[in-house]
């Protein structure tokens, strides 16, 4: 897969003098061993800079390893009561599923999606519990573009909050026949003018509208009509949806406009309706390089806590290699298969990784791989230009917000036991 090659553009990838290369690598190894990651990074960045001065034509490497962007040790603590949050998240998931299930019963049969919300409940709930500000907040409130077919989850939460009735849940997708309790299939402000703000279900319109919403917030503030500069725009998107031209076509524009008030959260469940989003490739890696190339800050949240120990003991990088090389199509299969299958076909590809899971039961191997493929997701922030001090400050503010998000959503995606 070219996206994982260090230089997808090189004419040849054979090394002219492997021995000499190995010496350079060793020096770097010992530097990191002696002085730590931070210093290693500094040296590498300075070498990269030097390579530019020397016109070596080293391409920018747009992707990072297929692991979480924020290392375990850099994660802040979870800001809330995880146990309570997990408890009612389960209630929301139940009510969302029942809302759809009832609407599917014979004689009604009006359908509904449930797996979309099921795979993103933790992301939304972290947002609802810790990030999304309502209209009474001093900022004026955030603008949130909910993924259209995750709507049952929002109804189910509103029900727990007491602002939507049981009869309304029963009226899901029966807008006229259950009036005044009918509620709409997807976010439609015209049909539910006091609830939904942004229609998103035509894939691709959510992302582009979110970008221009963020621009509008800047515009209206800059022109002195109203100061709404503290509002944040959030767009929840599907990985399949990212194939729409509208989803990607304005990304560089968002960066040019310096939209540091904009966040995309892409739920990379690797799946769209008919099959894998990228069976032979890796959608997360592709999106990472695409967004970074367009000038966005990318934070990947790929693996749950179960993987922390394995990755910490991956001294030779064998597991990371495996993660980098495994195509999405295989990850989906691992998710569906037993732990024994995962041991044989994933870990078993390299004797070193097979050894790493020797002490784990098949059960644990299975659970871990399932977690891996259901929680792959990004948080994105447009990257402000760093030419002025003010911007730099705001950059770091956004960054810590993003880190807290990543940490919180990762914690929240632990399987419920």
């Amino acid at each position, binding site marked *: 897969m070219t996206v994982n090659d260090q230089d997808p553009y090189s004419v040849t990838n054979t090394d002219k003098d492997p021995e000499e290369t190995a010496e350079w690598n060793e020096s770097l190894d010992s530097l990191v061993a002696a002085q730590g990651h931070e210093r290693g990074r500094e040296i590498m960045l300075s070498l990269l800079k030097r390579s530019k001065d020397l016109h070596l034509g080293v391409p920018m490497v747009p992707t990072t390893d297929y692991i979480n962007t924020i290392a375990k040790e850099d994660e802040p603590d979870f800001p809330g009561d995880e146990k309570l949050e997990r408890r009612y998240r389960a209630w929301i998931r139940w009510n969302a599923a029942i809302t759809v299930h009832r609407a599917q019963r014979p004689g009604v049969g009006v359908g509904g999606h449930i797996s979309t919300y099921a795979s993103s409940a933790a992301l939304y709930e972290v947002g609802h519990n810790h990030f999304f500000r309502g209209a009474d907040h001093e900022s004026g409130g955030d603008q949130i573009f909910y993924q259209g077919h995750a709507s049952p989850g929002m109804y189910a939460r509103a029900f727990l909050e007491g602002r939507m009735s049981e009869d309304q849940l029963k009226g899901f997708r029966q807008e006229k026949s259950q009036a005044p309790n009918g509620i709409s299939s997807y976010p439609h402000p015209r049909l539910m003018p006091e609830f939904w*703000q942004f229609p998103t279900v035509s894939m691709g319109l959510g992302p582009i509208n979110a970008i221009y919403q963020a621009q509008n917030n800047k515009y209206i503030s800059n022109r002195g009509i109203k100061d709404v500069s503290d509002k944040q725009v959030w767009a929840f998107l599907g990985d399949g949806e990212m194939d729409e031209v509208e989803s990607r076509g304005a990304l560089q524009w968002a960066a040019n406009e310096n939209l540091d008030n904009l966040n995309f959260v892409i739920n990379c469940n690797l799946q769209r309706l008919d099959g894998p989003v990228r069976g032979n490739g890796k959608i997360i890696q592709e999106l990472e390089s695409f967004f970074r190339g367009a000038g966005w800050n990318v934070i990947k949240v790929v693996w749950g806590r179960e993987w922390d120990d394995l990755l910490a003991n991956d001294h030779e990088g064998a597991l990371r290699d495996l993660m980098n090389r495994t195509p999405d199509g295989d990850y989906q299969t691992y998710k569906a298969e037993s732990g024994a299958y995962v041991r044989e076909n994933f870990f078993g590809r390299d004797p070193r990784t097979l050894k790493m899971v020797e002490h784990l039961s098949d059960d644990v191997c299975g659970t871990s791989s399932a977690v891996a493929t259901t929680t792959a997701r990004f948080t994105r922030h447009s990257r402000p230009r760093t030419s002025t001090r003010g911007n730099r400050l705001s950059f770091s503010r956004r960054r810590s917000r993003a880190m807290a998000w990543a940490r919180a959503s990762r914690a929240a995606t632990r399987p419920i036991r």
Partner: protein
Amino acid sequence: MKKMTLDNLKKFRDEMHIPITDAALEADPYQPPFYHPGEDDEAIQYMQERRRELGGYVPERRTKHTHIELPEAKTYDVVKKGSGKQEIATTMAFARLLKDLLRDKSIGNRIVPIIPDEARTFGMDAYFPTAKIYNPAGQHYTSVDREQLLAYKESPQGQIVHVGINEAGAFAAFTAVGTSYATHGEPLIPVYVFYSMFGFQRTGDAMWAAGDQMARGFIMGATAGRTTLTGEGLQHADGHSLLLASTNPAVVSYDAAYGYELGHIVRDGIERMYGGKHEDPNVMYYLTLYNEPLVQPAEPENFDVEGALKGIYHLSSATITGPKAQLLASGVAVPWALEAQQLLASDWGVAADVWSVTSWTELRRDGLAAEEFNFLNPNEEPRVPYVTTKLAEAKGPFVALTDFMHAVPDQIRAFVPGDFATLGADDFGFSDTRAAARRFFKIDSHSMVVRTLQSLVKRGEMDPAVLAHAIEKYSLHDVNAGTTGSAGGES
């Protein structure tokens, strides 16, 4: 998720720790109970507290907004006077009107012109020096045209949203600006100006979503018409955007012929969308503009404003006596109908009236509403469609003409009280002179004359021999014999 079986339900209930018994699930597996522990539950309390802390529930849509004073009628005067001897296109007339609106004390700074790289074509570079182009970074270069009167001026306080060649982005910007009344409680008036061909057919889905989001504002389809934007050809020649606009229930569309019509339509639109009095302000106005220069007439005395806003008004009466006919036309085709009126009188002794149809679509919607009312309320006094009432006294056959496909005027067919024929340009456009293109599509003045004669013959009011004679007299089959339309206009 596929349908859940009873077993799936039980397993899912266990995973989610829902205190619902097997018996409760078994009672009706199609309708399992919802679960709410009651508002005093510790977890619910915590959840509510989180939302209180964060400023209330989401999602939530509010619409309370700042009240804005609307401009007085005289603000729209610039288009009332006509253009004197000067020939200007309706695009230019609109640009002048907008210039005055931008200067208005109450709404001027709330107007947001949105333009995907055609401002100069539409004469809207006139706003560059004063309104400026919005750019959060300002302008950090020495602009090549800085000495020009209409130089490209960028500023963080700029008013014009210039998104580059990017109709998808432009419409996304329109949506955000047009819903600012709700999102930020501050009404803004987006005025999105673009090549009409690249509007509804290119971004129609986004326009549908904007209707859902209840955006308000003006969508200006400039360079409209199948034959008016000369020389640009097949991919530019718009003969159907009005029809596409009619499919969006949130879009109110007009095909204005003259600046003074535009003035009233824009004023009415602003009042409807921003005045706070109309029962349904959540609409977008789609107005077609043309680039063919012509002398803009002054507003007629006793102008029928109500008719123009509802979709049709009587523009010109026959000056002779003879067999009667009614010529209906819209937009750039109105002057062709006026010429046809002359030719019918001088060449054939036919007394034709001319009507300007400002909106075929609004007339149709009104007609359908009347039909539906009558269908469902058989005991009530039947409603008569507006256009039917308007044409009730008009004598002779009706012939309709536009620079659009037949289906545009055909929208009112069911409500026209009499013989009705339409002329239209249904095929792909091509590049040629206006006169040749209009003759090719048989939508020029002479084609209208012959079509009218044919209707009169059919009614037995003229001798059938005139038809072959007229076709020959006007060399109707010869595209080079067409004379309808001037050269010129920006494109």
